[in-house]
């Protein structure tokens, strides 16, 4: 059997520990993330923007219906006007979850600003009305879908500003509007600003 002398053992231990140190992974503590900020947008920014929008919306009282019933909300287009490839659904999902939890709003998935609905099952299932294979009493009836009263639309903007030769400022504006579909008037608008200042050594994406 081969035996290792002390310095060799030490050397081996050192190599192993170095290798272990190389593969470093840790969980993010989302409540208290001290991780380095990035010039792009990360989950913390979406969280901040969504929290602010929801708080402002609920505080405004515009979601309180006189008869205590709930508004039906449709999600319209959210334009990503930044230089980052982001999925605007990330932002909207957080807002939707918070609004649903507030119990003041229901969100329709059967209508969307684009031609296809977010969830087109509601329409697909109605095609079964012609099928003999389905028990017709279980197929959705005509005139049951509920049309939305409100529409949520918005835009995420980015402005890059050079501060001096080494520093740049990147500004993000999360702009949201809630419109009354019946009148076309905006009943609530919100803007969350997220600014970042960092070195100007590269593009902000």
């Amino acid at each position, binding site marked *: 059997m081969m035996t290792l002398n002390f310095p060799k053992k030490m050397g081996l231990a050192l190599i192993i520990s170095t290798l272990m140190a190389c593969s470093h992974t840790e969980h993010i503590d989302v409540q208290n993330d001290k991780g380095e900020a990035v010039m792009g947008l990360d989950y913390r920014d979406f969280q901040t923007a969504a929290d602010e929008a929801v708080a402002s919306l609920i505080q405004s009282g515009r979601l309180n219906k006189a008869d205590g019933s709930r508004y039906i909300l449709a999600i319209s287009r959210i*334009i*990503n006007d*930044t230089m*980052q490839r982001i999925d605007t659904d990330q932002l909207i999902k957080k807002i939707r979850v918070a609004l649903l939890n507030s119990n003041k709003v229901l969100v329709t998935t059967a209508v969307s600003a684009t031609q296809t609905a977010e969830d087109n099952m509601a329409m697909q299932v109605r095609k079964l009305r012609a099928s003999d294979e389905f028990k017709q009493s279980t197929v959705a009836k005509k005139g049951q879908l509920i049309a939305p009263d409100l529409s949520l639309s918005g835009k995420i903007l980015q402005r890059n500003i050079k501060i001096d030769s080494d520093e740049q400022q990147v500004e993000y504006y999360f702009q949201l509007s809630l419109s009354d579909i019946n009148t076309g008037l905006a009943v609530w608008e919100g803007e969350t600003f997220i600014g970042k200042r960092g070195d100007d050594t*590269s593009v902000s994406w």
Partner: protein
Amino acid sequence: MLRLLFFSVILSLLSGCAAMKQQERQQKFSALYHKAQYQQAAEFQLESKNSQTNDPEDLLITLQAATALRYADDITQSNLLFDQAENILKQHHQKILLNKSVSTLSSILVNDAVLDYSGTSYDGIMLNTYKALNFWQSGNKAYARVEFNRALDRQRRAKALFKAEIKQQQQAISKKGGNYARNTNNPKVTQLVKRAYSNLYNFQAYPDFVNPFSTYLAGLFYLHDGDYAKAVDVLKEAHGMLPTQAIVEADFKLAQALQQGEPDPQKYAWIIFENGSAPLKTEFRIDLPLFILSRNAFYTGIALPKLVLQKNAHPFLNINTLDESSRTQPLASMDNVIQTDFKKRYPWIVSRALISAIAKTTAQYIAQKQLGPWGGLAASLLQLATTSADIRIWSALPKEFQIAKIKLPSDNLIRISVPNKAATHIKLEANKNQLIYIKIPKSYSPITYNSFVL
């Protein structure tokens, strides 16, 4: 010392080989590209690509291949490569702006051509423009907008990048001491270079580092994405850069009208024509005065790059429909964008070549003194072998962009022809704004086009 010298000679001969291979690759790529064999051109280019993604060596290969794939209609693969090119470009620019670029030091010992191709400002602007077009064409307007935003931001940043490069250069020269500063600030040098390469100083330059094509196209995109306020801003800027371009002006006015809520019943087809090929670079040698150890200057041969403008594929394209006949007209000149950039950088390129010559000539002098004629011979061989200019360039770009705009005809048919040749018939989508993008790199190249609804 002698051994070191011979070793250097071999090494430099090898680097000379690499440069020759690069040139061969360029020629073979162009031969395929000009025959509109875009898929094969891309595949050939990618044979030399390193297996590792985002390898700093691969910027030019990636740009060339991605462009070819765009015209081979392999949009997904094209954008994948453009994304890689953008990552590589970022690495290079970061190095320059962090002042960590090794370029000034190592190229002094050999020449600029041995360094990785690190990209120009217009490379960045065009790569984002092409990516935007790829996404737009494939219906992904959300990503197209991001890429157009990036292209415009790059135009804004270009000046800062250039300033950083110059600063780095000046620092490197001042660190080297008086002899270098004396040589690089010699007005006689500027005068001689100007005489040898007068074309560089005789053309109508665009404003620094802007590419009017990218600005106009971005404006056209915002217009069709329903963002009229932004379209007005950007098209106004494009109109300012191209004050005599009637279609740009009309589109600017259209954006204004739409912003004011006027109806827009008329549908159009925009035709963009990528005409000809971007300039190539060639090397020329010039004797320039150098001060080395004595007070008297002596003349030594220096290799410098020169842009060689290519011919138009065609003067224009004829556009015919049932209702109207027109032809494409100049929109923006890529030649001009490239020349403007090159001219800005040229004093720097000359300085670097001078510094390199000083270092090598000094080495030759010392070698001769210490090692006798053989040492001197080896050192002069080294100088001869390593004196060459950097002639790499993104050659897949066009010479210029032309444009036409026609009302949709009642039969939705459009005929496009090069002068004196049979027409290509293109069926348009009824009642929709659309764009037809045409590429013809040489007079003998067949017409390649794609069209999409805006």
